């Protein structure tokens, strides 16, 4: 191994350990590691200005392909398209939240099913999955869990089963589209796939899995959800959905902007607008619509996540430039003996198990160049490996309370309201559901692509 490879690996491993230890905020960790990669790996060891320039990838902004892409292209280094898209969607989501959109939607659906526990349970699972297809699962769960607790207090049922099911479905919904979960955005923008590509590949298996999951959770939780007094609840006394709307004009504006975002995403393979363009456009339109509160919305953007991504992409760029990821790809090919089925099983289940315990974003960012290399050497189609990686990282995260952001937010909201959810309670129900969906996904990939 060369000095640059050793340092790239040491920085990457140290970064991962520091993220897990949670002593220093994770965006400082990735940014510090990124700077170290630029200075030590590229500057001192490789003495390569080109490697630094390629990894920072700023020249991409000046290319037409970055904003308007007719042919698929792959990106290297900092994935600015992912960062701009995520930041843009954050601005839109903040606008929607400020207008009361999410609370209104939750209450509206609860009222549509007459606030009956089991129908609320089923519709909230579907809503969680559908919203997570377009909006980050953290926001979805933040609002769904809060409304679930509120309803549970009014309708006298235990909110824990419902919150757990919502978390699982949010992760499942996120796996269905390119913008549903950060690993998918990374996979999509890095390999040049569209929203439609994801929907017709990972989306299909997510849809099948959602139906199975709803049935599974219904049978697992039905006894816990039955409340003794539910028949006596007068729903006219419950807060009306319209009360959730803080400002009618803002509400209409945010709903229209959300609709536009969905249309732009669904049609981006036809319009050739990249996710970076869509993200930037949506952010600008939201800021114009919320002109008075634009500064407040901008302040609410989670800059820590944006910085986290920048640092992370640089560190992964270090592994890529030094050839470490090729070594990992060669290793996977060797242990699978070139057998495509075994390769799929390894990528899917290793991604899932890893994502159950560590942040799936760094994992996906690391694995994208690995599967590119693997496809080139083994002959297995790159899209097949890409869908496998996306499904593995997205679904695996559901198995433990720390596997995905939605799990952390959901369990935290529950605990703050007097419903602590420990590892035992969480894994007992969600780990089996994760295994079931992974088994379905394995069978789906085998049947459809091999």
């Amino acid at each position, binding site marked *: 191994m060369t000095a640059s490879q050793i340092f790239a690996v040491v920085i990457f491993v140290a970064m991962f350990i520091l993220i897990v230890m949670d002593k220093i905020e994770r965006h400082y960790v990735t940014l510090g590691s990124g700077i170290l990669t630029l200075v030590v790996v590229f500057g001192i060891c490789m003495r390569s200005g080109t490697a630094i320039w390629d990894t920072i990838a700023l020249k991409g902004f000046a290319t037409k392909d970055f904003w308007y892409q007719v042919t698929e292209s792959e990106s290297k280094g900092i994935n600015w398209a992912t960062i701009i898209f995520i930041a843009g969607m954050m601005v839109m989501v903040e606008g929607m939240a400020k207008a009361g959109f999410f609370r209104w939607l939750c209450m509206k659906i609860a009222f549509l099913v007459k606030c009956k526990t089991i129908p609320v349970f089923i519709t909230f699972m579907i809503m969680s999955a559908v919203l997570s297809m377009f909006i980050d699962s953290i926001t979805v769960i933040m609002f769904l869990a809060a409304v679930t607790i509120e309803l549970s207090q009014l309708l006298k049922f235990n909110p824990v089963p419902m919150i757990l099911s919502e978390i699982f479905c949010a992760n499942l919904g996120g796996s269905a589209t390119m913008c549903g979960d950060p690993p998918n955005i990374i996979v999509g923008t890095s390999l040049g796939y569209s929203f439609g590509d994801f929907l017709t590949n990972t989306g299909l298996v997510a849809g099948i899995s959602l139906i199975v999951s709803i049935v599974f959770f219904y049978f697992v939780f039905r006894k816990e959800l039955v409340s003794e007094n539910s028949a006596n609840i007068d729903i006219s006394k419950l807060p009306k959905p319209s009360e959730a709307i803080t400002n009618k004009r803002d509400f209409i504006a945010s709903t229209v902007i959300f609709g536009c975002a969905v249309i732009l995403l669904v049609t981006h393979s036809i319009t050739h607008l990249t996710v970076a363009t869509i993200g930037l456009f949506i952010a600008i339109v939201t800021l114009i619509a919320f002109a008075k509160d634009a500064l407040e919305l901008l302040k609410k953007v989670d800059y820590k996540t944006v910085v986290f991504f920048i640092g992370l992409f640089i560190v992964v760029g270090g592994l890529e430039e030094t050839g470490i990821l090729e070594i990992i790809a060669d290793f996977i090919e060797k242990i699978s003996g070139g057998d495509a089925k075994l390769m799929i099983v390894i990528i899917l289940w290793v991604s899932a198990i890893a994502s159950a315990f560590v942040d799936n974003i760094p994992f996906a960012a690391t694995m994208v160049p690995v599967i590119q290399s693997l496809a080139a050497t083994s002959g297995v189609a790159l899209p097949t490996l890409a869908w496998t990686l996306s499904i593995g990282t997205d679904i695996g995260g559901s198995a433990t309370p*720390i596997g995905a952001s939605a799990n952390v937010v959901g369990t935290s909201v529950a*605990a703050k309201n007097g419903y602590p959810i420990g590892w035992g309670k969480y894994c007992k129900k969600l780990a089996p559901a994760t295994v079931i969906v992974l088994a379905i996904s394995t069978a789906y990939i085998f049947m459809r692509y091999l």
Partner: protein
Amino acid sequence: MSQIIISVGREFGSGGRVIAEALAERFNIPIYDRHLITEIAERTGLTPEEIEKYNENPKKKIISRRVRGYSNSIEDNIAEMQFNFLKEKSDSGESFVVVGRCSETKLKYNPALVSLFVLADMDAKIKRVMEVYELSEEDAKEFIRKKDKKRKRYHNYHCSGHWGDSRLYDICINSTCLGIDKTVDYLENYIRARSDI
């Protein structure tokens, strides 16, 4: 009476809690220690036993994660509830004594805060713990070590300053030197001088 908040940090076995109770009595103000657990239990619907299980416990890092200020760790959430409760009390203008809970840092913004840290000689702590918990000398020593380690980890995780570091508190006092009663007298005078009560 103007607001007064007395924060008492303590080594295990130093008599810090007894001193805090005595100060609460002398100033005729409520004390939040175990009472804090009852209050949180009433607010959340959790049982006091459930809260006690996670009270002043550091989170288990390897199985915990934090996302945008949200944490899956029950210990973290209970701690946050307690900090919020103390802040509410502090902002309401109420006077009270609080034992531990990083209160010397979390309530530092309030000028009414007087922060104390009570320590004691090891021999005195062992003697006290042997009497209160009916333990052998060895067991008492080990018990003290474990409890202080836990408090230190809890404190240092939630605050930037170090537990027991004199720079964090207005006054650090060794209860062995004067004994519990005279330490209380001394602290009472100090607090009265600080608060013009």
